[in-house]
């Protein structure tokens, strides 16, 4: 069936089976491979995307259910080609990643947090990424990256949801 999806502020018409998950649709039909398939049953968080600004597991949502929502993937965060968002920058600087598999989802989960809460406490940062598993870093540098990005964005008076 044909579905019209709003992904990274662009309209896309995709022809999919009703059973196709949003994750598979993003990866296989739209080649947005920044959403990663991990456990595919909602535990690891690697497939996180933003649905109307809220972090959501794309493996637990069918693509047809995404009709009418604004979907944002990691590919939609950078302000322009070759540039990085403040969060992406901070993850590079603090070594907030090793293998990188969980990273797009971590950044999107953090993005959802910072668009609602410009000065999160350490506990709030941990809570926001507690649904995302990282098997490399031990999380310390990820928390550091989010705190650094929050501080910079406050300094520049920009909000996470302003691209």
């Amino acid at each position, binding site marked *: 069936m044909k579905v019209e999806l709003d992904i990274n502020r662009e309209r896309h018409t995709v022809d999919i089976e009703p059973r196709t*998950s949003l994750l598979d649709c993003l990866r296989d039909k739209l080649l947005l491979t920044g959403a990663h398939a991990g456990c*595919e*049953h*909602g*535990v690891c*968080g690697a497939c*996180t995307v933003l*649905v109307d600004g*809220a*972090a*959501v*597991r794309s*493996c*637990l*949502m*069918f693509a047809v*259910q995404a009709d009418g929502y604004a979907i944002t993937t990691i590919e939609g965060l950078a302000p322009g080609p070759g540039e990085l968002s403040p969060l992406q920058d901070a993850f590079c600087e603090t070594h907030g990643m090793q293998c990188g598999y969980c990273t797009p989802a971590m950044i999107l*989960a953090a993005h*959802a*947090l910072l668009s609602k809460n410009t000065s999160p406490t350490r506990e709030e940062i*941990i*809570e*926001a990424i*507690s*649904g995302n598993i990282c098997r490399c870093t031990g999380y310390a540098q990820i928390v550091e990256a989010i705190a650094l990005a929050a501080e910079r964005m406050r300094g520049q008076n920009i909000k996470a949801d302003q691209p």
Partner: protein
Amino acid sequence: MLAADDGARVIAGGQTLVPLMAMRLARPTRLIDIARIPGLAYIRDEGEHVAIGATTRQCVVESDAVVRAKLPLLAKVMPFVGHTATRARGTVGGSIVNGDGAAEIILVAVTLGATLVWRESGENNLLAAPDFFLGPMVTALPLTACLAEARFPVWHEKRVGVGFHEINARQSDFAFVSAAAQVALDGEARCTRAAIGIGAATAVPLRLDAVAEDLKGQRYDEGAVRKSLGAALDGIETMADLHASAAYRKRVAGTMAVRAIADAFANAARRP
């Protein structure tokens, strides 16, 4: 549609059903998405109870002012329900109809004695929460019915306090054991009403009415609470799995319940 196809299932948030499908534990022939039916998502203060529509998202309940003011126990457990990303899609009704014995919303429904309303062939049916949950992931909801609303009783006493504790492997993961307590105190800090429940220890959440009865007329006394809990938990059979043995669950259920009750008394005592 549900009556015509016995393999059909209702889906709303999909945060329990889709994982079950991914693991092939559920193989519905057809999914009927009710998430966008506008009349099913609401939170209404109806005096004696707060009515929550089946497709109301968990993230909405978590930050709702009516729930905070009238259903402090539900407000208390909401941050423990799944993760931020699953609460963004998951619904209150979905948590209830899936009947996972470790689910916090179900624990509150059983502890407070919520009433569940479902629709079947155009008619409303009502059932009290303790009778609704039959076993792990099994409820009294007929396959041809759809949950419409959950009514959580409101306590109108001035000094109501709540407590909730759970133990799990990582924050917001499935609880191995959980305990919830809501108490009302008089001016002398004596308990006038109590509701105590434990979750995840048994197949369905368990309300400990004998403990609630023992607390009546009493000030908080840890020794007495432990004794009463010990007697109440003595006869029950707790579950065992990879994560926790039956003996561990029973012991920790007592400890979680003591902490929840202590918090509830302290919480209520802070109110004027």
